[in-house]
């Protein structure tokens, strides 16, 4: 591989990281918040799909993509609230509810989304990080969407809030020991309900990014496991919002390997590269699940690693 090809691939990888990573980032941050409070929501894949559909439909109807983003978040928080409410009933397993919510969210999205497969909705605008270079290729590759910035800011805010605010402390305490939270007079169910709802909101916004920016249309194959992979990334990021953001960026770059190699003419194994993100996630899970550091950082009440 000569220098110019290497350059193209590098630009494509960075561009891919900037373009593809946003939904991973939002879902991972949402799941991070939920898991910090001691509950697992595996249904975020369904939330992502419903958010994508709702965002697209609202943007099409209202003409405003940002209204679509808000609507997607609200749709996601409805699913999150359902999950949060059901899991607070005694004897209900949060992982099984997550699977049910995944099927339910996808079903509802496909049901109401059918009329929106054809029409074209207004998209979110983007701006370029690479405009100053004067190089057209770089400028195009480094197009970024404001939602990416929002995601990074949310990640930083969450990390700050966990460490420095009373609410952050309450969430962490609820996640580490429900008994001590109760002893402090905190309603464990309420905290987890709110965290799951807020997590659903973030995942819904991530879905809106899929349908309103990249790939930028609504269809039934829009999300194939991104929500699930993001949930797995949280374990890898060891429940730290900043590491969630970094993991999402790395993951976006990894997802761009296939198209990047295609752009310099390596088309062999296109379908293998389709499988690459899943294989990578599985390898990441294998590497991080058994690690001592993960065992140290895991919220004590979490059922996902037991």
């Amino acid at each position, binding site marked *: 591989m000569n220098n110019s090809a290497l350059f193209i691939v590098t630009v494509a990888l960075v561009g891919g990281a900037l373009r593809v990573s946003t939904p991973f980032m939002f879902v991972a941050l949402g799941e991070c918040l939920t898991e910090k409070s001691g509950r697992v929501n*595996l249904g975020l894949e369904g939330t992502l799909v419903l958010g994508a559909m709702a965002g697209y439909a609202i943007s099409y109807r209202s003409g405003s993509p940002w209204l679509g983003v808000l609507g997607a978040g609200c749709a996601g928080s409805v699913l999150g609230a*359902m999950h949060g409410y*059901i899991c607070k*009933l*005694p*004897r*209900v*397993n949060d*992982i*099984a*509810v*997550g*699977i*049910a*919510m995944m*099927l*339910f*969210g*996808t*079903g*509802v999205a*496909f*049901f109401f989304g*059918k009329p929106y497969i054809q029409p074209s909705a207004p998209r979110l605008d983007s701006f370029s990080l690479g405009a100053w270079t004067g190089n057209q290729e770089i400028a195009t590759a480094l197009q970024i969407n404001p939602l990416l910035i929002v995601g990074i800011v949310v990640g930083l805010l969450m990390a700050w809030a966990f460490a420095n605010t009373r609410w952050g402390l309450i969430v962490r305490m609820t996640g580490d020991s429900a008994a001590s939270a109760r002893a402090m007079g905190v309603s464990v169910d309420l905290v987890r309900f709110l965290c799951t709802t807020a997590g659903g909101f973030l995942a819904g916004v991530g879905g809106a990014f899929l349908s309103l920016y990249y790939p930028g249309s609504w269809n039934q194959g829009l999300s*194939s*496991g991104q929500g*699930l*992979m993001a*949930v*797995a990334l949280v*374990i890898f990021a060891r429940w730290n919002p900043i590491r969630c953001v970094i993991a999402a960026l790395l993951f976006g770059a990894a997802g761009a390997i296939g198209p990047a190699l295609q752009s310099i003419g390596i088309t062999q*194994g296109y*379908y*293998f590269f*389709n*499988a690459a993100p*899943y*294989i990578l*996630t*599985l390898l990441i*899970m*294998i590497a991080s*699940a*058994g690690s001592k550091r993960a065992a140290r950082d895991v919220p004590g009440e979490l059922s*996902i*690693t037991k």
Partner: protein
Amino acid sequence: MTDIAEPLGRAAISLGQWGDLSVRLRRGAEYIAIPLLALAITGVLFSIFLLALGKSPIEFFQLVDRGGFGTAFSVQNTLQRSSPLILTALAVALPARIGLIIIGGEGALVVGGFAAAVVAIPLVTGNVPPLLTLCVMAAAGMLVGAVWIGIVGYLRYARGVNETIASLLMTYIGIAFMNFFVEGSLRDLTNPNKPSTMPIGDAYMVGKIPGTDVHWGLIAGIVLAILLSILLSRTTFGFAVRVAGGNPRAALAQGLPVGKLIVICCAIAGACAGLAGFFEVAAIQGRANASLVAGYGFTGILVSFLARHNPLAIIPVAILFGGIVASGGLIERRMGLPDATVLVLQGLTFVVLLMSETLYGRFKIFQVRGATERT
């Protein structure tokens, strides 16, 4: 299994209270009544949903009845679709008994069907007798399915990898893996319409059960469900599985080989789903292609949960959902509802069913005085 029989004897003493027949009958009634109640509540909620959309719920349920169970043709169609559902539900039930929530039946079905279609290619061109070919195909499908889910079980035990996420990831990997070959090196170039493997040919297809239009997969599913039910309830292996599922640490303390049991359960589960894939290829499609990804694996999860992971109860529940799936096309045409209607109904059923878990032990009628509280 003789090496685990001795500690089991000791474990059995603590479970003696379950021997009381009247307790078991009352508790059994609870396990039937609460899922039925959940189904009824789902029906009401779904009717409200349809009414809100301006559709008639009565028409909907009439169409499910007609499209799924009304005529001889629709009953056969339903049974045809129940066969993969029984097998994929078994793929959920067995790991569930040992405490694992595996949702990768769809992936095992796809790779199992793909493996069956691939081993068939040299056998068909070599004119090997059909019966032998089918046996080899079924074995290949089951073996690959067993390895596929067995890996998930191994990762769970050896590395603590969450089996639910891992098994779903394996599904995506399996589908991408099949597409890689089907659109690449193993593609049948004489079929330009849809990327597929070479067809196995009519002479090599699995036949129908005499007098019906239903393939032998249904019988295979029912027989396997009965066998697995016996395995779970009447053998030392099944007992060990139930002990390990109830309390893995106690099982380890008793000297049960928990890791081995987990991997074996997952492997049997994968073999069931792989067999479903074999029947989809050898009885329906005739080749491996994207049609294998039909959602049977996901419906199977719901079937198993509704049957409370009981292999025998899976049979009627699978037939019920086979009927609902089979009536989907009719509902789409007659009522102008999208094909995802069935998905919404399934999702709603699943959610309500899991909510109903909280009702166990709440009704006095199922409680027997003096019996210990269910945990």
